C-alpha cells in the first residue's frame, strides 16, 4: 500500500500537449476513479504513473519516492489493460505466474501462489488453458490474477471492463470493489463510464481536455458539480443546461422563465448557465418557480419515465416515476425547487456557490 502524489504533471507528444498540469493526491488504500470523455488524457495519466509513458514535466511520487526516472518494474505497480493483454502463448497458470517467474521465485513457490490466486478468482479449473480458450469474463479474471499475484503497492486499471457485456460488467465491477475491500491496495481506475465511477470510487477525478475538472466523492460530484462540464457529464440523463442571466437578488431568468435561487450576492445582468437535474423537478406542482414543458415524446426505463420536450423553446428532460398517472404527451407544468437550481458562470463555466453548498472551484 502506498500513497501517490502527482504534482503539476504535464505530458506532450511533440508540440501537442495532452495533459496540462495535473495535481492530485491519492491516499494510501484509496480507490480513485479517473473519469472523462474519450481523448481527455486519462490513459496517458495512468500510463505515466505506471512508467509506460515518460513524464514531460512535473513529478509523480509513489509512497514518497519520486518515480519519474524509474522503470515500470521498479515502481511496484500492477496494471490491468483494457484488452487484458494476456500472453497468448502461455497457459493461464503461466500468465498469472509470469511476474513471479521474472522475480526469480522457485517453481513450487510459484505454483502454490498461482493456485491460491486462481482459487480466489474461480479460475482453478482453467489453469492449463490458453487465453484463446477462455471467455471474456475469464480472461478478465486472469488479467486480475496476474496483477494481484505480485502483491503490488498500487493497482492501475485502464478501462478493464469495457470489453465485457453489460451483465458481466456489473458483476466484475462488484468483484473488483470486493477485492479492493479485502486487499485494501491503493487503486487508480480509468473509465469513461460514469456508473462505474460512481459505484467503484472512494473519490472520482473528472478530467476534460487534459485538465482535472473536479475531485470529490461520488456524492459531491453529483450534488455539487464544480463546473458546467461536470454537470453535463455526470448524471443520466444529464443535467438540463441553458443560458440565462441574473435579473435581481436571488433571481435568474431564462427564456422568459423566472426562477428564484438561494445564491447570494449575484450581480444583476451577469450572464449565467442554469442547470436543473431532470430528476429534481416536481411535476404538476403549483407555487413559485413554475414553468411548463411541451412533451413530444416519453421514454420508459422500467422504474422511471423520461419526458422529452421543450421549455420556452429550449430542449428539456424531466424524469418522473414510471407509476405517474395521466397522459404521457402534452403540456405539463412543473416546479423547480430553489435548492435544485445550479448556476455556472457563463464565461468560465465554474460553479457559482451557494452559502450551503461549499463546492470546490474547478482545479
Amino acid at each position, binding site marked *: 500500500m502506498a500513497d501517490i502524489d502527482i504534482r503539476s504533471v504535464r505530458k506532450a507528444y511533440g508540440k501537442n500537449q495532452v495533459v496540462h498540469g495535473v495535481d492530485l493526491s491519492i491516499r494510501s488504500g484509496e480507490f480513485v476513479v479517473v473519469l472523462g470523455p474519450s481523448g481527455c488524457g486519462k490513459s496517458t495519466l495512468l500510463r505515466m504513473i505506471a512508467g509506460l509513458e515518460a513524464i514531460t514535466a512535473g513529478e509523480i511520487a509513489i509512497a514518497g519516492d519520486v518515480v519519474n526516472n524509474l522503470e515500470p518494474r521498479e515502481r511496484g505497480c500492477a496494471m490491468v489493460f483494457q484488452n487484458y493483454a494476456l500472453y497468448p*502463448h502461455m497457459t493461464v497458470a503461466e500468465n498469472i505466474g509470469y511476474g513471479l517467474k521474472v522475480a526469480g521465485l522457485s517453481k513450487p513457490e510459484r505454483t502454490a501462489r498461482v493456485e491460491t490466486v486462481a482459487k480466489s478468482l474461480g479460475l482453478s479449473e482453467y489453469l492449463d488453458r490458453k487465453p484463446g480458450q477462455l471467455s471474456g469474463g475469464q480472461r478478465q479474471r486472469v488479467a486480475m490474477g496476474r496483477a494481484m499475484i505480485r502483491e503490488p503497492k498500487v493497482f492501475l486499471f485502464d478501462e478493464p471492463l469495457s470489453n465485457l457485456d453489460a451483465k458481466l460488467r456489473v458483476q466484475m465491477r462488484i468483484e473488483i470493489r470486493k477485492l479492493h475491500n479485502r486487499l485494501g491496495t491503493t487503486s487508480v481506475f480509468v473509465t469513461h463510464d460514469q456508473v462505474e465511477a460512481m459505484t467503484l470510487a472512494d473519490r472520482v477525478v473528472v478530467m476534460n481536455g487534459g485538465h482535472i475538472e473536479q475531485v470529490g466523492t461520488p456524492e459531491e460530484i453529483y450534488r455539487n458539480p464544480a463546473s458546467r462540464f461536470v454537470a453535463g457529464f455526470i448524471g443520466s440523463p444529464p443535467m438540463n443546461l441553458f443560458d440565462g442571466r441574473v435579473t435581481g437578488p436571488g433571481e435568474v431568468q431564462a427564456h422568459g422563465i423566472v426562477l428564484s435561487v438561494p445564491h447570494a450576492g449575484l450581480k444583476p445582468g451577469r450572464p449565467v448557465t442554469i442547470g436543473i437535474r431532470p430528476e429534481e423537478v416536481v411535476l404538476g406542482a403549483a407555487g413559485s418557480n413554475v414553468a411548463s414543458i411541451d412533451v413530444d415524446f416519453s421514454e420508459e426505463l422500467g422504474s422511471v419515465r423520461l419526458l422529452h420536450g421543450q421549455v420556452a423553446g429550449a430542449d428539456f428532460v424531466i424524469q418522473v416515476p414510471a407509476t405517474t398517472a395521466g397522459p404521457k404527451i402534452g403540456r405539463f407544468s412543473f416546479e423547480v425547487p430553489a435548492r435544485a437550481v445550479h448556476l455556472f458562470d457563463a464565461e468560465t463555466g465554474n460553479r457559482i456557490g451557494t452559502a450551503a453548498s461549499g463546492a470546490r472551484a474547478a482545479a
Partner: protein
Amino acid sequence: MDRRAVYKTAWIGSLLLAPQLLLVFTFFYWPTGAALFWAFTLERPWGGGNEFAGLDNFRMVFSDTAYWGAVWRSMVFALGSTALAMGLALLFALFCDRQLRGYKAYQTMLIWPYAVAAPAAGVAFRFLFAPEAGIFAALNKIHPEFWNPSINGIHAMILIVVAYSWKYLAYNFIFFLAALQSIPRALVEASAMDGSGPLRRMWDIQLPLLAPTLFFLLVINITDSFVDSFGIIDLTTGGGPSKATTLMVYKIYFDGFKGLDYSGAAAQSIVLMLLVMGLTFVQFRFIERRVHYR
C-alpha cells in the same frame, strides 16, 4: 458468405484461365517434362535420338564422389546463409521495432538489397571482396593471404555466403519487422509491468510470438539457398577454387552446359527438386505443429 463469382458457361472460365495455364505450362511443366525425359534416357553416342536408361543416370550421379562433395557444400551453404541472413535480419528488426534513432532511414536502406538483381549484387561483391583492392588489399599487406577467395576455398565459401545472405537479409527483415509490429504493444507493456527488462521481454514475449514467422522464413531460406544461389556463384567464384563453391545447383549447370552431360545434369535436377520438396514437406509436417501457440 460465399461471394465467389460463378460462370455459367465453362468456356469463359477456361478463357480467363488460359494465359495463366500457358505460363505454368511453358515455364513449369514443359521444362520439368524435358528434365524427366533427359534423366531417364541416354543420348546415343553417335546421335540418332535417345534410348531409355532406367535409373542408370541416377546410379551414376550417386556413385560420384564429386556429387556428394557438392551436396555437403550445399548443406554448409544452406546453414551458413540461413543463420546469417535470419540472425542479422532479426537483430535489425528488433532495433527498428524499438524505434532506435534513425530507424526510418535504416528501414528503407534495408529493403533496397531485395530489389537488386543477383548479377548486379554478384559483381558488386566481387569487387568489394577482391583481394587486390580496397580494404582487403590493405589487410593482405599486413598479413599475406589473409583474404584470397580465388585460392582459398573457405574464403570463397564465406564470400558466396555473405553475398547471397545480403539479399535475403533484406527479405527476412521485412517479414520480421512486420511480424514484430503486429505484436500488440500492450503485451510487451504487460511484460514490463510484470517486471521484465527489454531482453527478457524479447525472449519471453516477442520471440515466441514470432515463431510462425521464424518457421516460415526458415523454410524459405533453406529451400531457396539450394536453388537461388546460382547467380551469385557464377559471378563471384564461378564454382571455384577447385570446386570449393560448386554447390548442387551450380554443378547441374556445369555438368549440363559445360560438360554437355544432359542426362547426368537432368538426373541431378530431379534429385534437387525432390530434395527441396521433401525438405518443405518435412518442415511443414513436423516442425510447424510445435510453433503454433493458439
